[in-house]
């Protein structure tokens, strides 16, 4: 039985980063703090720091992704690690055995870290349980379960705009059922002390007993937006029209798409977020996505800093300390 949190080693340090669940508030704050100095690395003439020099990081993507993989790659390179990108078409591999066989092959090449994305929930946990003890695993998205670095970059972005988490009203809109991003955000927000997390969508896209994660469920976007501080729009996959989950994109936009009119119900200084890529005119109007309240591009930039922080912490050294000691050379 797997009951203990395998994400921490015996000394309580970050070993793997698989899901937000299982971390205490302080762990998350440490990661956010560690990311602060990295957030400015890109402004310097030399963007690299030597924290992970000599380390080999493998981007193991069983599911297509451009942005997430690129930001992980950039983060690793700015930490001076060597990066190997492997894209595996899951339909081409037979089943789980090949997944583990492949891992053991990669281990034999002396890698230090796997960044894993997979279309099945639990894939990153499975890999973390079976890799050699010196290897760290970072989950870059597994099925509908978890996408912890995305959630952390969202928290980082929120903190930069809102300072305190405690009294925020955060609204998450859309396909909660299939969203690993939403699940990780919910865990992160509640762990960091946000008192009111609202999830919004039709019942077909809200999973059973989601209240047990500490959120309030709304089926009407207007009601949910009242006095909101943060509005997070989720991407709507086109295939959701197939399984009788939704009637049409048009009706979805009418009911759950974020427009200027609806956004006026939120607080005047509310920020609008989206994990990307955006479906303009499906979940969000272009004028909002490109408008003054949107922090969508900031999220992408912050993604690099958060991933640098998580990578440097999992590979054994605290990011903030390392960057300070290496400040002269960077």
């Amino acid at each position, binding site marked *: *039985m*797997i*009951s203990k949190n*395998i994400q921490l080693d015996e000394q309580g340090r970050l070993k793997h980063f698989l899901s937000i*669940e299982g971390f205490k508030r302080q762990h998350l704050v440490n990661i956010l703090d560690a990311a602060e100095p990295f957030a400015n690395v890109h402004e310097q003439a030399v963007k690299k720091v030597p924290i992970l020099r000599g380390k080999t990081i493998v981007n193991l993507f069983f599911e297509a992704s451009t942005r997430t993989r690129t930001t992980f790659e950039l983060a690793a390179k700015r930490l001076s690690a060597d990066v190997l990108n492997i894209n595996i078409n899951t339909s081409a591999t037979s*089943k*789980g*055995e090949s*997944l*583990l066989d492949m891992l053991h092959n990669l281990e034999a090449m002396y890698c230090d870290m796997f960044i894993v994305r*997979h279309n*099945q*929930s*639990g*894939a990153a*946990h*499975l890999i973390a349980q*079976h890799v050699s003890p010196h290897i760290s695993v970072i989950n870059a998205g*597994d*099925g*509908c*379960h*978890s996408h912890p670095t995305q959630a952390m970059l969202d928290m980082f972005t929120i903190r930069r705009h809102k300072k305190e988490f405690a009294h925020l009203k955060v609204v998450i809109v859309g396909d909660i059922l299939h969203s*690993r991003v939403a*699940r990780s955000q919910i865990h992160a927000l509640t762990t960091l002390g946000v008192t009111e997390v609202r999830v919004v969508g039709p019942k077909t896209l809200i*999973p*059973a*007993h*989601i209240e*047990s*994660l500490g959120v309030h469920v709304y089926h009407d976007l207007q009601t949910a937006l009242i006095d909101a501080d943060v509005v997070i729009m989720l991407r709507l996959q086109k295939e959701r029209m197939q399984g009788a989950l939704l009637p049409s994109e048009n009706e979805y936009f009418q009911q759950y798409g974020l427009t200027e009119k609806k956004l006026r119900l939120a607080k005047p200084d509310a920020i609008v977020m989206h994990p990307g890529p955006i479906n303009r005119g499906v979940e969000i109007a272009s004028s909002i996505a490109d408008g003054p309240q949107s922090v969508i591009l900031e999220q992408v930039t912050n993604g690099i800093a958060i991933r640098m922080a998580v990578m440097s912490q999992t590979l054994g050294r605290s990011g903030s300390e390392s960057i300070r000691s290496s400040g002269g050379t960077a």
Partner: protein
Amino acid sequence: MPDITQLTSAAAANHPAISIINGRVIDPANQIDQQMDIHLNNGKIIALGNAPDDFSAQQVIDASQKIVCPGLIDLRFRLGERGYETKRTIASETRAAVAGGVTALCCPPDTDPIIDNAAMVKLIRPKAETEGVAKVYTLSALTQQLQGEKLSEMRELKDAGCVGTTNALQPVKSTLVMRRALEYAASHDITVFIQAVDPWLSDGCAHEGAVSTRLGLAGIPVSAETIAISRDLQLIELSGAKAHFCQLSSAKAVQLIQQAQEAGLPITADVTAHHLHLTEMDIGYFDSNCHVIPPLRTQRDQEALRQGLKSGVISSIVSDHQPHGSDAKLAPFAETEAGISGVETLLPLALKMIDTHDMQLSEVIKRLTLQPAKTLNISEGTLSIGAAADICIFDPDAYWVVDREKLLSQGKNTPFHGWELKGKVTCTIKSGAVVFAAEKKL
């Protein structure tokens, strides 16, 4: 395991005169629960209490401090992974069965090839008889190739030895076909075993609830079970068929079965030992050993299953034994094979009901012996004089720790690894021959 003497199936051919002495004999069929001796010869039980005058035992088994009961009968047991039920697995899995005190077991027809014609039964039976240490019964496919379209030759299959019929895990989608199948089965007095699951709501791998939501796993709602039960109860009433509902998983299912029984429908039901002791929470962080179908549900469901077992609404406990190679469980949760290697933990898990729910020992034994025998309409499950000498002897107070590596089954897939259980089989006798003994001295 050095302390276990394994006897080959060849030994089953011998039928020595055996006396089992000083044990507490429990035989629910004859309402016996007292300390007495029991004597076997030529594969049959010949006397309880004093031995006949002309009897001289070739072998004496001292069962002091132990329970002597009929060999257990397991209504749901797979002899290997689908398509891999070979001579080798029939030998290893029936050996695991007798180590768990099980002397007769019943396999579903969803093997590869599917048991939907008499020729298949004739192919399997000799294999099971020569290689099997325990008696292997089979159910026939309810519909051809389990496709839910055309009826199987269930009467011929019955005559060939099948003890019931079922569409196993494949729901019969058409209400009309299900009605006809039940009517046809009723015409030939064949019991229909029903695994109740709605075909449209069952595309998942865990109970739809807090845990599936937390882990992002596709859920199977309780209504997947209750919709199917409700439909089939109506059809049973219409057709007059005798039916047995397999592996109930939810409180609402127990309630539906109870109401139907009270209304006089000829139905029975079973529950797995693991559904009595595990819930959705045991999945933890994707423990694939807890991937079972039907899924483990909530604590409330678990409690209702236990109460249903105690009250008798649920008449049998099964292992739903499904041995898997290690690869089958080494994948992301949803991609792993469902099922538990359960036969060796069946008895102690069932016995836990005595301590947790104040069940009588004889009542627990009844649900592992007499009741499943009645459901299969077979003569086993009793210690009556003249009955086949299928006997389980166990120490009800022995504690042991489950170690998956020490399971005799080739499947090491148990979620009970590391659990301390009470109650250990010390000796199993099949047709009058010792087929399992946990001590060196017999």
